[in-house]
Structures are given as structure tokens and as C-alpha cells.
């Protein structure tokens, strides 16, 4: 039987993990105190509950005790995080993954039985450092020690040119794996707005538009060069 998950805390981190797991076809139960956040999962999660994670009865009723793995990320609230870890342990959840808020917190969590402590902030220090150094970088994901995927706003001198003309592969050993493109439009009430579409595996003839975000795969040092163009 496929592994089942509970994601407690639907901040940016929690909701992305939950979404990714759901996309992979796993059964995921989500929990948050914020109704709006939970509602985003109402149709896609196998259970979506508005509740306080520190409420033992509510956790039990939501079926959290039956999942194989619980992922806990409750923002900056150390107290809740510790309390929920303890409750999860008591409910018999075998695998408890907790997002660490500060190093001492991680140590306490381990003692309480968390099976894995993660610190995305620390793990992505490289990503943060890069995005601070250049606002043009939206995100960097390390795919191996050598290779990363970087999302970067298309440099100005790429605008209006087809991919074949900019020779990213030849000159920088970097591949464009996707383009995130904005589509601007007027709403029915006449207010302008934009939405984003993604062009997967763009062809050589695809032209780059102003404010496109290029999703690039390559070695970090080469990606960084492109981000500075």
C-alpha cells in the first residue's frame, strides 16, 4: 500500500510539500488553523482540516494517528512544534519530519522522537545568498552536487530573440528547460492583471519576451554567469 502522509501547518513550506506529495499521487491529510489555507486543499487532499494541531483529540479524529509519515511545519512557533511532535509520537506515527526553527529546537525534537529534522532555511542558504545578490533570480534548486535548476528573469538583451539566437548551451553550457511567461489581460471590470503560463521544453524558435522567467539547468557557476548577463 502506498505511503500516507499528514502535513501539519500549511505555510509556504508545508503547502508546497503537501502539493508535491499530492501531485505524486500520495494520500495526504492537511491540517492548519487557517481556514483559507486549508480550503485550498479541500478538493485535492484526502482530508483537509481546520484545527489546532496541539489539540490531541482533533488530531486523532482527523486520522493523523494512522498515517505513515507526518510532516510538521508550524512557522515560528517552537512551543506548538514541540507539543505536536510529542502528540504525534503518542498517536503512534512512525515517521515524524519536523521543520526546525532554531538549532536547540532541533535537539529537543530529536529527543522527543522526531525521526528527521529539516532546516530548509539552512539547506537553501545557497539559494538565499544568490537571490539576495541578484533580485533577478527567483529560485535555485540543487539537483545534484554539480547541477542546479535556476529560475531567472530573462536578461534584457534576450528580449525579442528566439532561443536559437542566444546560444545559451554553446556559450554557457546551460539548457532552457522551461519558460514561465506572463500573460497580461483586462478583467471584466476593466482592471489590468496578469497570469503565468509555463512553456515546457521550449523550442529553438521560441522567442523570449520581456519579463519571461527562464528555468535553466546547468552547473551552478554557469547559471550564475547567465544571471548576471
Amino acid at each position: 500500500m502506498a505511503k500516507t502522509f499528514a502535513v501539519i501547518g500549511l505555510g509556504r513550506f508545508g503547502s508546497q510539500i503537501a502539493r508535491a506529495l499530492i501531485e505524486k499521487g500520495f494520500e495526504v491529510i492537511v491540517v492548519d488553523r487557517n481556514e483559507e489555507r486549508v480550503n485550498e486543499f479541500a478538493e485535492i487532499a484526502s482530508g483537509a482540516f481546520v484545527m489546532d494541531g496541539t489539540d490531541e483529540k482533533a488530531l486523532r479524529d482527523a486520522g493523523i494517528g494512522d498515517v505513515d509519515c507526518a510532516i510538521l511545519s508550524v512557522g515560528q512557533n517552537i512551543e506548538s512544534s514541540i507539543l505536536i511532535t510529542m502528540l504525534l509520537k503518542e498517536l503512534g506515527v512512525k515517521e515524524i519530519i519536523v521543520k526546525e526553527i532554531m538549532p536547540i529546537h532541533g535537539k529537543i525534537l530529536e529527543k522527543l522522537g522526531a525521526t528527521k529534522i529539516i532546516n530548509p532555511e539552512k539547506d537553501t542558504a545557497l539559494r538565499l545568498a544568490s537571490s539576495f545578490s541578484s533580485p533577478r533570480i527567483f529560485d535555485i534548486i540543487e539537483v545534484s552536487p554539480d547541477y542546479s535548476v535556476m529560475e531567472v528573469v530573462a536578461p534584457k538583451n534576450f528580449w525579442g530573440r528566439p532561443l536559437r539566437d542566444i546560444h545559451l548551451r554553446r556559450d554557457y553550457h546551460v539548457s532552457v528547460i522551461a519558460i514561465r511567461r506572463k500573460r497580461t489581460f483586462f478583467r471584466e471590470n476593466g482592471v489590468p492583471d496578469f497570469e503565468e503560463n509555463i512553456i515546457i521544453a521550449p523550442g529553438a524558435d521560441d522567442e523570449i519576451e520581456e519579463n519571461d522567467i527562464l528555468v535553466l539547468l546547468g552547473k551552478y557557476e554557469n547559471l550564475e554567469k547567465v544571471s548576471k548577463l
Partner: protein
Amino acid sequence: MKKEGKSLEERFRELMEEAQFYFLSKNYEEAEKFLEAALKIKPDARALYTLGLIFEMRNEKDKAQEMYRHSLELDPDFKEAKNHLAKILKG
């Protein structure tokens, strides 16, 4: 005086129309210029909001946030500005 006021209003409308045209044609740098020119004539919630959209698209979130906030100061019921500001604050 009255006549001058009217012509400024007309000028403002023209600048906004130009800005929206460029915005829709994805020529954001031009759109930005026209919006800034329009805002020199008078503060306007929609002009500020549209500038916010342009900054948001460029990942200049601080600037975008500022624009949406200004826009909401002028028009607290501006739904789209609220939505975009919420989206940015959510990260």
C-alpha cells in the same frame, strides 16, 4: 483655471491609456514610463496598482508591495490590489 484642470485630466487619461496599451503588449518598460508620468499629474489607485503588477512580474517584491499599499490607501476596496498584496506577503 477650470480649463487647465480639464486638460490635465485629459492628459492623465491619455497617459493611462498609453500605459495600458503597452502593458497589454508586454512592453513593460514603456508602460512604466507612462504610469509614472500619469502619477506626476495626480495620485491614482489604478496607476499605482499597475506599476505594482510590473514590479511583481520582475520579482521586485518590495517595490510591488509599496505600490499595492499606496494604491489601497487611495482605494481601500481595490480587490485586485488586495489580492496581489496578499500573494506577495504570503511569499
